[in-house]
């Protein structure tokens, strides 16, 4: 064999797998679903039943990987930078639209931008609920907001962290109602609830599933919700929309994304798989147990929801601005 032939053979050997990859039907190997938050959080607990149900449709393993850190930025940056071949997906929460805005405010290079992702489907969307302690003086949202208007900056609330989802919900409300509330950030939704129960803050915006047991036990009172409609489990609690604050709309949502540039046939396959997965009986019972209603949207519908939500959140983050500048 001449030297040239050897080289040609080597080149061919190297090229072959590439050709095979380009032609193989999707999916033909395990898929990684990145949950950018630790096990036990909303993203993780949604990702696992979704992955299990998608496995059945795609006939390939879907492995949930928790890539955590920096309020989700680590995992989202990882997916944004990974190969757009449909083998690395992201289960994101609304923080996907918040983090780039916060980066902008601080003038730092963004960890990722929203347009690095192609939306596949919305899985769930839970409106936040405004809760106060049962022994607090406010019986209705109206009383709460009136009092907040009178005692500007005196009524405090806890959140899951600055620019976090629970902070944004309250921020949207206080701007819609034109009141000023005092913000006490905590490291997560659990500590935020503890702060309210312990009497260290006056109010909290929280997802319904976490506070329902506390409401049933007579510890907390729900005043109003941020949803478009009332929450099924709390039919007597009005929405802020009904009370005349249509801008106070906010959801804790979970959706599936792929990196931008993923081929359209692959995205189509993923959309079909997600639709089938959401109808899966095991998936439905898993979400039921966590008292998280399924809110499936895809294509144009999801894009519209996502854009409107991102716009509201961007506006909210800008209104908060840089906290240390205000002092």
């Amino acid at each position, binding site marked *: 064999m001449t030297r040239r032939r050897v080289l040609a053979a080597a080149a061919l050997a190297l090229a072959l797998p590439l050709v095979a990859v380009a032609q193989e039907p999707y999916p033909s190997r395990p898929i990684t679903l990145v949950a950018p938050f630790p*096990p*036990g959080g909303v993203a993780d*607990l949604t990702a696992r039943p979704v992955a299990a149900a998608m496995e059945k449709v795609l006939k390939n393993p879907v492995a949930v990987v928790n890539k955590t850190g920096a309020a989700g930025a680590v995992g989202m940056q990882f997916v944004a930078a990974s190969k757009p071949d449909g083998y690395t997906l992201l289960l994101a929460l609304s923080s996907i639209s918040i983090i780039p805005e916060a980066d902008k405010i601080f003038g730092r290079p963004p960890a990722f931008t929203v347009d690095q992702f192609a939306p596949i489907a919305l899985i769930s969307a839970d409106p936040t609920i405004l809760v106060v302690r049962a022994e607090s003086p406010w019986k209705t949202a109206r009383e709460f907001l009136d009092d907040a208007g009178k005692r500007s900056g005196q009524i405090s609330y806890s959140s899951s962290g600055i620019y976090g989802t629970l902070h944004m919900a309250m921020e949207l409300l206080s701007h819609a109602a034109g009141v000023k509330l005092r913000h006490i950030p905590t490291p997560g939704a659990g500590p935020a609830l503890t702060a309210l129960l312990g009497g260290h803050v006056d109010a909290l915006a929280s997802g319904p599933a976490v506070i329902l047991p506390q409401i049933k036990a007579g510890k907390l009172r729900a005043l109003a919700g941020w949803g478009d409609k009332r929450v099924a489990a709390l039919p007597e609690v009005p929405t802020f929309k009904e009370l005349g604050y249509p801008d106070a709309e906010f959801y804790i949502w979970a959706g599936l994304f792929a990196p931008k540039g993923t081929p359209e046939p692959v995205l189509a396959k993923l959309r079909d798989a997600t639709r089938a997965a959401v109808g899966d009986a095991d998936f439905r019972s*898993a979400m039921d147990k966590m*008292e998280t209603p399924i809110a499936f949207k895809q294509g144009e519908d999801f894009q519209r929801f996502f854009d409107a939500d991102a716009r509201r959140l961007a506006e909210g983050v800008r209104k908060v601005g840089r906290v240390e500048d205000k002092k």
Partner: protein
Amino acid sequence: MLETLGNLGLGFSVALSPPILFYAFVGCLVGTLVGVLPGVGPLAGISLLLPATFGLDATRAIVMLAGIYYGAMYGGSTTSILMRIPGEAASVMTCIDGYAMARKGRGGAALAIAAVGSFVAGTVSVVGLMVLAPPLAAFALRFGPPEYVALLLLGLLVLAYMSSGSMVKSLAMAAFGLLLGMVGIDQMSGYFRFAYGVVELGDGLGVVPVAVGLFGVAEILATAGQPAPPSVIKPKLRELLPSRQEWRESAAPIGRGTVLGFLIGILPGSAHIISSFVSYAVEKRLSKHPEQFGQGAVAGVAGPESANNSATSGAMVPMLALGVPSGPIPAVMLAALMVHGVSPGPLLIQQQPALFWGFIASMYVGNVMLLILNLPLVGLFVNILRVPYPYLYPAILVFSILGVYAVNGSVVDVWIMVIMGVLGWLLRKLDFETAPIVLGVVLAPMIELSLRQSLAMSDGHYGIFVQRPISAVLLAVGLTLVLLNLYSFARRRSDWRTRIALAEKGEESP
């Protein structure tokens, strides 16, 4: 009381059923392994195994996860004592005197005392959990940010007792640790501090890579730097068990560690880590021979190891009685309950008596299992010391890197460990102690957040710390401690610390 016994009967009928017994055993076994492996702690272990519990029912899942949690506290002491590598962050204090004991040929005794101390603490604290959960949980809730600041300041004061040498040096190390704890996203403003564009640093320097680096890697480097390899210790079988004297010296520390650990465990935060630091400081303060600490004092092993085990039961109090997490580990366990359709909340004990009492009973059973599992293993583990260093240390280094990487799947963490290892080696050469650095890294983010939360609550008025009764009392206790020390310092200038310093000087000058 009669009702409690009846309920406990129900609990044992659940806990002793073969499937629950099996999952409790699996949890304890996995926990022990997770504890033994350097770096991998209970949080990583529980997180990795959470998905595996989705197929089980709620009681089995929670029994298994709890087994991992307290099992890890048993296992964590093993590598700390034998190799000076903290198996998990709560075992840092055990490294100091445990390892010193092992160097004297008392490694087996240290392991046995750690296991028995853990058993006593585990069992007694479950009694506390069972009898006192609802009232204690209500009390724990009253600990808001201002109370926490006062408590943590008190915690910083005990730092002074941790050092065995120069007070200035150990305070310098604590300050350095506090500074390292400043790295990461500022919780109040969202600002990235000292991250230099590395997104992974947003969460700050993890306790695990810092502890494994400063202790484990530094120890390996120090040993490698010695002109002749240290002699291999060949433990004899009759030396495995603690002597009568050692039992006597560890009885009181185990008791104090149990109570301290349980009380600290109830409070939110990384309580099991802090409890071991506090217990060590208390034992050193109360000891008649504080100069022995750092040289292989039995109390320095018995106290912290009991405290960190007891703290795990304490951490379950707010979780079971109120449905709120007291730290990251109970948060994952709460999620496990929610996945199974059990809503954790104030009504859990009434609505799910079989689950609650079964869980309590399984903790009694689990602690017995762990004792039976761990005591025979003492003989086995001690034999690791027979392996010559050229083979043992590279293997430990590999395990440390794997363990640290596995926690977050982050290479940045491995780099932190390596850098801390080199730093720890340098500091040891210069006779600085590194345990205060770890305490600083643990405490800094908590103190800072609580302080700034408190000031946000009061709109910037420092009066909030003295207006609230619990924080006022804690601050008063701290102030009294400082004054008492100043008094004794002024009256009797040469305490044990200066005696040691003098003795060391005497040795150095020929």
